[in-house]
């Protein structure tokens, strides 16, 4: 097997991988290598032809391909070593990576630091166990997006979209613009799961009927989807008897959630948080395996690509420093626990000596929406160490909270603190 060596190896060249690799190089890592399974860089970005990318990162409102292109130009400028059309088959605890490609066959790469940036995947129909037949015409929203935007084929003519994730909403608009009919978007929750701006710009502006607290109770059709039976749901998300109705359609799109893609992480012995589906990380985005870092949606699913790039940079910087300065000293740390109405917090732990040097931004998601002013607090016992006011809290919009460096000395008294979101 061909053996390759490098300082930092990044798996995945989406917005996370590009930013992490670039940043590792800026930190002085000499040989930074980027692996991508597709024939072009950018991960999912090339198929995201809508705008809304890069306002923070580049100060421009860009499309996905444009956003990718800016980063790819930076990657080439920084002389990153790029292996595209290369799929990783195996990762060991010792960071040894085996990858396969048409051009190079199997290659084994042992980097001094590894960044996991494989992104996320869509939750499939099977995971929902929707009853009914199994005809053609059931796609996840992202697969439909690739078919339409990259391959130039329409997966159907008359669509029902289950789930109100961002890709689902964006595809509702896209399909409408391509002359298809989107007859309904259904969301099982009492609120949408994607961003508000997409609700306005993709659903309301195109008069697409959105039904909350509603799900697909059955798929019908032999060869192609012929209809779906939709039904209201109770608080336990079970179909409510008597609320059924049949909607004729030839395609059902699913936009029912994204799952961080961590099969390779598990192979490497990286511990996974069952709540986020991603690795447990500290403030440097280091996993439990020394020298293995995680960047972007592999950690937890972000709302915006700008957030992905920004946080991935931290992972890349840490990986770069890991090879140029060695492993940071293991010292006191505090665990951050999801408290009242908080689903999860990233990072999971913060090292105090590093907090002393630099503020740490926490990203958290709430469980329940609160449509009135809330306080986001870092609490130890009865004491609120940090308390900040926000106008509202929604599960679909990640909350960022800064831990100032000055807090390090106060946190030293605790093993763990709670993060609460309260009205």
């Amino acid at each position, binding site marked *: 097997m061909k053996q390759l060596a490098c300082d930092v190896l990044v798996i995945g060249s989406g917005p996370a991988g590009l930013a992490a690799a670039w940043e590792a190089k800026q930190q002085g890592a000499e040989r930074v290598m980027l692996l991508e399974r597709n024939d072009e860089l950018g991960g999912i970005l090339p198929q995201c032809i809508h705008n809304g990318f890069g306002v923070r990162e580049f100060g421009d409102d860009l499309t996905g391909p444009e956003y990718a292109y800016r980063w790819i130009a930076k990657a080439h400028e920084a002389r990153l070593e790029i292996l595209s059309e290369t799929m990783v088959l195996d990762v060991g605890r010792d960071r040894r990576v085996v990858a*396969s490609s048409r051009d190079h*066959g199997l290659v084994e790469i042992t980097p001094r630091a590894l960044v996991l940036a494989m992104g996320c995947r869509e939750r*499939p129909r099977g995971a929902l166990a929707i009853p*009914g037949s199994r005809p*053609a015409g059931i796609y996840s929203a992202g697969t439909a997006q690739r078919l339409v935007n990259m391959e*130039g084929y329409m*997966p159907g003519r008359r669509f029902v979209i289950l789930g109100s994730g961002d890709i689902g909403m964006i595809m509702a608009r896209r399909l409408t613009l*391509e002359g298809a009919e989107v007859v309904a978007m259904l969301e099982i929750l009492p609120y949408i799961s994607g961003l508000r701006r997409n609700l306005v710009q993709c659903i309301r502006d195109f008069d697409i009927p959105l039904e909350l607290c509603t799900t697909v109770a059955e798929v019908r059709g032999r060869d192609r989807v012929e209809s779906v039976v939709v039904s209201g749901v109770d608080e336990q998300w079970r179909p409510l008897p008597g609320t059924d109705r049949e909607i004729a359609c030839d395609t059902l799109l699913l936009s029912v959630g994204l799952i961080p893609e961590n099969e390779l992480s598990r192979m490497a012995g990286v511990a996974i948080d069952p709540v986020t589906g991603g690795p447990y990380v500290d403030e440097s985005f280091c996993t439990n395996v020394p020298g293995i870092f995680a960047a972007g949606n592999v950690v937890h699913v972000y709302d915006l690509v700008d957030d992905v790039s920004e946080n991935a940079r931290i992972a890349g910087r840490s990986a770069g420093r890991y090879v140029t300065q060695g492993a940071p000293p293991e010292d006191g740390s505090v665990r951050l626990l999801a408290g009242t109405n908080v689903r999860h917090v990233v990072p999971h732990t913060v090292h105090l000596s590093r907090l002393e040097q630099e503020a740490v931004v926490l990203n958290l998601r709430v469980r329940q929406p609160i449509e009135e002013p809330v306080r986001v607090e870092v609490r130890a016992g009865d004491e609120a160490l940090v308390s900040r006011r926000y106008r509202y809290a929604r599960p679909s919009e990640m909350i960022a909270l800064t831990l100032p460096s000055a807090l390090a000395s106060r946190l030293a008294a605790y093993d763990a603190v709670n993060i609460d979101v309260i009205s």
Partner: protein
Amino acid sequence: MYDVIIVGAGVVGAHIARTLARYQLDILLLDKASDVGEGTTKANTAIVHAGYDAKPGSNKARFNLAGNAMFDTVCRELDVEFDRCGSYVVGVSEEARATLEDLYRRGLENGTPGLELISGEEMRRREPGLTEDTVGALYAATGGIVDPFALCYAAAENAVANGVELRLETEVQGFIWEGDAIVGVETNRGPFRSRWVVIAAGLWVDDLMHEAGLEGFTITPRKGEYFVLDREAKTAVQNVLFPCPTPVSKGILVTPTIHGNVMLGPTAEDIEDKENLSTTAAGLNEVMTGALRLMPQLDARWIIRSFTGLRAAGSTGDFLIEIPDEVQGLLVLAGIESPGLTASPAIAEHVAAMLGEAGLPLVERPDFNPIRHGTPRFSLLSREEQEALIAQDPRYGRIVCRCETVTEAEIVAACHAPIPARTYDAMKRRTRIGTGRCQGAFDTPLVLEIMAREYGVSPLELTQKGGASHMVVRRTKEVAE
């Protein structure tokens, strides 16, 4: 003019075709579906049964035992994945002890080798995730798991390689008669004449029997719903686990599959519609409840797919394999439900013998080759073997389905196999694309592109499973092809 027409290219028809291909005969294998094995063969529990539970003296018992004994050879010859891993019937109540003993005795009477009654503690030692209520189990050393799709297409491919003609999307609509003798079939693609017609039409056999003037035998589609679990579940399930059986079915199993997943099911519900392959909320709920009774810690988050299969349950409760007195030139196989997959190679031998006795000259072909080589499955090979393959054909280096690690070369090979995988589902059964945890979300556009290229057609012509099951319906912007 053929010597034999076989109607139905499921696992039974395919094995009959392969067995008859040993002889100097002109054979036509017909199926109305777009691929072989599209009926009961593609949706069942994929278990090679040991044969302890069939009624002693029945055809089911006889052919189960005989078929089971043939599996090592057949799967080796046909390059089909098979694991004789043993199986367990697990008792979880005091009454179950008696049932287990009954099954054990019946197994001895059937001549099932390798049966052993074991204690509840021993069973839980072998399968730690089993319920604490486990009181004992019947171990059957000859039980196993197999790739049911491959068992069918490999036999059919081997038949084709040995001269059998296969026609898909060819539906028998009636028979050609000469007096009381059947001398062929009428189909949607015209008439085909033959000396013998063998009906192995699964769910539809009673309709064809009726067409042939045979009365009394009926098929009831018995629905079985299943869940397929992610490979991750394999950490929690080591063995093939049956609950104690009921009169209508073997109960909700928890079983590893040959491909490394875990399968739960099936339910057993008699229905009327032979094409109703839908799952139901109640059925899926029953599957999970039943499985949890054996393995309480199974996690519903492991579910990646659900499906329904229909058993061709015959009115006599046994396999019917006969040359009816009333009609000449006809051999009928009916009611081949479980353990039909296990029995299929033995049934095929028996059918050949019956035809021989009835006057069909069985002259061996000197050039018959029982060996079929499947396409190497990249994901199962050592790194050295993988490297060697990529060196031979770089398309082995391109992974198209990441969850199941399927390469472009495997997809291309399935396009050019003796029985080409014409549909996406056929491709799934050949290569395992789209069967993993993302369920095709990643590979679908890539596979469409490769299949369109290899077959020289537009993606607009490709279907999921034949008929009108097109996967994409038009170009964007209405661009002309």
